[in-house]
């Protein structure tokens, strides 16, 4: 008893001193931390969050910038109920959903195949890496113009190749046919972003330790079983992060439809963001346009929520 008292007392004193010393250091750290993040937080608050609040406020009013000095009455959620009855909004939602659904699905599958190939392409990695980054680095606007040229009805190389392969015998006007334009656009989007998807997935693949495959080899499994039992489960966090980023980017798509087709023909390629943009800056309907923009934001939030809550947290998963 005496010995335990003897040992605990100085130990407790040392612990208290250590704790006090540590908390002063921790306090200094916390202060410095707050100072260092303050500029970034302030910047974000001013140029991102404040405009977001303004946009939401705008969406609750009727604002038309066509004529100066018009009254801007508060109309509550009228813009949003109009939105839900707006067939053009539903069309835009459908277009966006198709673009997102098809391109993300195809990119995931293609990207996975490519990542699996690249994981073992030791000798040609340099060339492949460079090739893969080219679609990524290309400006989206430039890519859109490039595909306009490729899809050109008379002089486009796509029609030419298809005719030479006898798949078609007359040139197709890719960007003017209501049934085909959206698929042409989706194909262009897939071209631009599959390589990036492949890179993300490859990075995830490279984190899987090789011993697992060696152990599986001794157990006598084949490649197909390896893929489903080892690769895919361990890739889950990477796939989720890649899907999250790509889906959100696809929902926000603007440059491609704007430059390739400007929503046409008709509104068959008018995505949500494009409709919101036209509403804001062509029709100058700032109230309704803001509601459209906020609807895009809400959809992005919903999608993120879905991925994070329903399918599992990406950041936690990645670290495990």
């Amino acid at each position, binding site marked *: 008893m005496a010995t335990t008292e003897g040992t605990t007392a100085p130990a407790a004193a040392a612990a208290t001193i250590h704790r006090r010393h540590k908390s002063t250091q921790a306090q200094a750290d916390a202060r410095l931390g707050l100072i260092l*993040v303050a500029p970034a937080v302030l910047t974000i608050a001013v140029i991102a969050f404040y405009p977001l609040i303004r946009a939401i406020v705008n969406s609750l009013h009727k604002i038309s910038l066509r004529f100066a000095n018009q009254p801007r009455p508060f109309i509550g959620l009228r813009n949003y109920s109009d939105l839900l009855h707006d067939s053009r909004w539903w069309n835009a939602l459908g277009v966006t959903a198709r673009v997102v659904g098809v391109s993300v699905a195809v990119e995931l599958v293609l990207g996975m195949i490519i990542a699996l190939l690249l994981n073992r392409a030791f000798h040609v990695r340099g060339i492949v890496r460079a090739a893969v980054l*080219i679609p990524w*680095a290309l400006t989206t606007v430039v890519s859109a113009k*490039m595909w306009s040229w490729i899809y050109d009805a008379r002089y486009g190389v796509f029609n030419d190749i298809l005719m030479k392969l006898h798949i078609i015998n007359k040139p197709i006007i890719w960007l003017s046919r209501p049934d085909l334009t959206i698929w042409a656009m989706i194909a262009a989007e897939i071209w631009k972003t599959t390589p990036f998807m492949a890179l*993300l997935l490859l990075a995830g693949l490279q984190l899987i330790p090789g011993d697992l*495959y060696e152990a*599986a080899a*001794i157990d006598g499994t084949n490649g197909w079983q390896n893929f489903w039992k080892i690769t895919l489960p361990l890739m889950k966090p*990477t796939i989720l992060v890649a899907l999250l980023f790509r889906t959100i980017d696809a929902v926000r798509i603007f440059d491609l439809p704007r430059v390739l087709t400007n929503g046409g023909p008709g509104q068959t390629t008018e995505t949500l963001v494009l409709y919101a943009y036209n509403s804001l800056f062509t029709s100058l309907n700032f109230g309704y346009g803001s509601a459209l923009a906020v609807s895009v934001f809400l959809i992005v939030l919903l999608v993120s929520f879905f991925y994070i809550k329903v399918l599992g947290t990406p950041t936690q998963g990645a670290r495990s």
Partner: protein
Amino acid sequence: MTAPQLAQPAPATATTRARARSRVEGGVRTTLWKQIVFYVLIAIFVLFCVLPFLWTLITSLKSEAEIFSVPIKYLPNPITFEQYSKIFHLVRFNRSLLNSALVAGWATLISLVIGSVCAYALARLTFPGKNFILALVLTIAMFPGIVIVGPLYQQFSNWHLINNYLAFHLFPLALILPNVTFTLPLCIWTLNAFFRDLPLELEESARVDGCTRMQTFMRIVAPLAAPGVFTAAILLFIAAWNEFLFARTFMSEEHNLTATVVIAQFEGADVGTQYPWGQITAASIIITLPLVLIVLLFQLRIISGLTSGAVKG
């Protein structure tokens, strides 16, 4: 009796080991046939990535007549730079390259300064609200620009920043600030992952030697951070250079446009004849070439920068 018993297991084990060795690579036996298929698939993928861009390059090197010849000529004959000379005679095009460089340069610089210290704090220090700030950064990265473009337009109009490059045509604030909304989170995201990967022992030993946090940052971390900052700078510059939505909205006068907007709105010098595909492709190559060069020179850095934030969380 013992001899055959000893003999039998031995060859079986050798075969199993050999089979295991050949299966080590991703679990598939690499026969010659499979290797050929493998490399063919890789080649197809490389062509898939490169061909559309190559076609743009080829088109830009053709004469006007050759571009519009039917049937399509797949190789220019002769190679001519007339499209490039036409493009460089367009004042608004040359100007747009400068404008894009200004916007991207300033956005990158501001984001790096503000973002690097923020990323360091997030990586190494503990303070109240840290997780909240991390979530905040992630949320901003997912913002659709369309949400803020309207209110920003109203605000910038009030401040007379629309179509305004301020003193000496050097400070297009109306474009720099919106670009910062996405380059700043990207910077924090990338550098946070980078700082977390730096070995903790170096900083801890400096602390033991008596350096304050700031001294540690300046003397130990900052020099080590150089490659990470460089990578982040590349990623940010490319992102801002390629930006279109804000560039199109906040600047409309010809001498204020950035390269992306000029390309999107191209009508060309020879209005009235064919659509100026020659000039558009030439302009596309010029706008993209710096990016492609940067990408080719710094592939490894770029890839590690892009993936480290996402994969390692």
